[in-house]
């Protein structure tokens, strides 16, 4: 294996972690919403895509990337709140397939609205100037922006962990995920908790879309691809489990990155092979979903 030095593999591993960080953010929102509301949000990819486009728009009217990092999650989160309140809330108690179908229809509407506003073709998304270039990470030079993606993901995860584990509202969320009936009996307005969880999940999706934009550009269809891949992450990691989503997201990122080094033509297919293996070896892991 001439040319495949240890350093190259280590660098590719880091690239995989950066890619995985995007999967982690995406899957965590999906997982959080499913764990609480038992809603599989098929529009999650569309929220991700709109996040990237809102960032593009803000920069085009004179904003910068740092403003976007704050404004995009807020905007997408507010949009998510409205969607939950108006469209998803009427469907609670009507079977698990209905919110899934509704969000699927919603993704069509969102993608088409973005096509109307921005056109069908994609746009490049410039890496902010401060984050251009590469830094030496010991095994070689690594793009600074990818390092930033890993760092930003870690910050979001830490904030989410502190929020869920250390605040009283986080306690209510965790209790509500386990038994919404009891939480309701204890006098908590569960529907408000669900509303906020949906808002948080979609806000993180928008944030992930913005982070991914400089890596791959923006295009109206960008959400559909990552949605299918995020399903792999949730099957591997277990739906509704935050820790599982983190580990599986990073694993999927590394698997994609490593196969594109050794067998580039198999990179897209490799993660589905990973899912197939998990389904064969541990089918029970993915059957714990509430019926």
């Amino acid at each position: 294996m001439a040319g495949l030095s240890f350093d190259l593999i280590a660098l590719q591993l880091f690239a995989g972690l950066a890619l995985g960080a995007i999967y982690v953010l995406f899957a965590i929102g999906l997982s959080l919403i499913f764990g609480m509301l038992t809603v599989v949000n098929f529009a999650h990819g569309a929220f991700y895509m709109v996040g990237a486009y809102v960032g593009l728009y803000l920069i085009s009217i004179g904003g910068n990337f740092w403003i976007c990092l704050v404004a995009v999650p807020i905007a997408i989160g507010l949009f998510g709140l409205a969607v939950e309140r108006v469209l998803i809330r009427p469907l609670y108690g009507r079977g698990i397939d209905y919110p899934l179908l509704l969000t699927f229809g919603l993704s069509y509407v969102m993608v088409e609205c973005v096509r109307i506003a921005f056109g069908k073709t994609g746009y490049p998304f410039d890496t902010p100037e401060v984050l251009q270039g590469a830094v030496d990470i010991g095994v070689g030079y690594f793009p600074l922006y990818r390092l930033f993606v890993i760092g930003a993901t870690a910050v979001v995860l830490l904030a989410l962990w502190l929020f869920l584990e250390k605040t009283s509202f986080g306690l209510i969320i965790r209790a509500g995920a386990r038994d919404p009936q009891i939480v309701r009996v204890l006098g908590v307005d569960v529907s408000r908790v669900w509303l906020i969880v949906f808002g948080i999940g979609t806000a993180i999706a928008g944030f992930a879309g913005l982070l991914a934009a400089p890596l791959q550009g923006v295009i109206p269809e960008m959400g559909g691809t990552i949605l299918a891949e995020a399903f792999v992450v949730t099957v591997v990691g277990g739906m509704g489990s935050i820790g599982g989503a983190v580990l599986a997201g990073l694993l999927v990122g590394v698997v994609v990155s490593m196969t594109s080094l050794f067998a580039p033509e198999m990179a897209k297919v490799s993660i589905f092979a990973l899912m197939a293996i998990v389904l064969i070896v541990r089918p029970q892991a993915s059957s714990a979903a509430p019926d």
Partner: protein
Amino acid sequence: MTETTQSIKQPRATTGGWYEFATRHRASIVAAVILIFPLVMPFTALAVNILIYGLYALGFNLVFGYLGLLSFGHAALFGTGAYLCGIAIVHFGWPWYAAIAAGLAGGLLMALLIGVLAIRTRGIYFAMVTMALSQCVYYLFYQAVDLTGGENGLRGINVRTIDLFGLRIDFINPMIRYYVIAAFVIAAFFVMSRILASPFGAVIEAVRENEMRARASGYDVTLTRLLTFVLSGGFCGLAGALQALHLSIVPIEILHYETSGLVVMIALLGGMGTFFGPMVGAAVFLVLENIVSVWTVHWQLIVGAIFIACVLFFPAGIWGTLIARGKR
């Protein structure tokens, strides 16, 4: 979901009138409607599309409506049928009937492969796993450029004439093409009617209504699900093969997850778990698309909005609502 997926057999004993008649002769009614259908349609090409998508939705409805599993990966079954039919003609020079058989077999085989993996999951995971696996099939066909033409699609599926018992039939004539395809679709509806009326059909619905009870009654639930999924693959593979013959090209988009979503929409619009629902849904959906496309290119916006409205206000679909009215 129970009120929308009422068993076909249940009302037979309780109500009379048009509903009972329609249920008893359901396949013959579909055949009669299909036979006179092109005479009332403005374009025969649209009528052919309705036939093919109606068949595709019929196969999907077996899993979604009757078995109660939501699959988001049926594009893989439809697309594999189309590609195998096309490849058989373009690369191997097979006659048309052998190519259709190849498409049907392709649908069955792909359903077996996806089914073996996806059936291991339960509940909501099924939709996600089927969608992910069909995306995998998309990439595989996309990369097998030598066989499938990759991004450009598979071109050159030219079937001009069809030889049948010494007769040479002109397949270019739209009306003749319609009736050739209609023959397959009608046959498929009769087979579906037979499956649903069989004891196995009753087991399928038993699994949907109460998995535990079906298991306790001694039925192998996992095997029933797998068999039903594979059967559904046969119908969808046949639909794909007919689509390949009709379009004389197989675009790669046929495997895209939007093709999976399309059939979900058609089935829900028509009425899931009803015998006529898929055909009604395909007809309404495609006629609507035809009309709307004339005055806007943003058809998807309308589709999404209609679909959202269906889920919120109209979950029984067109035919399901008519049945509910008829029983009253």
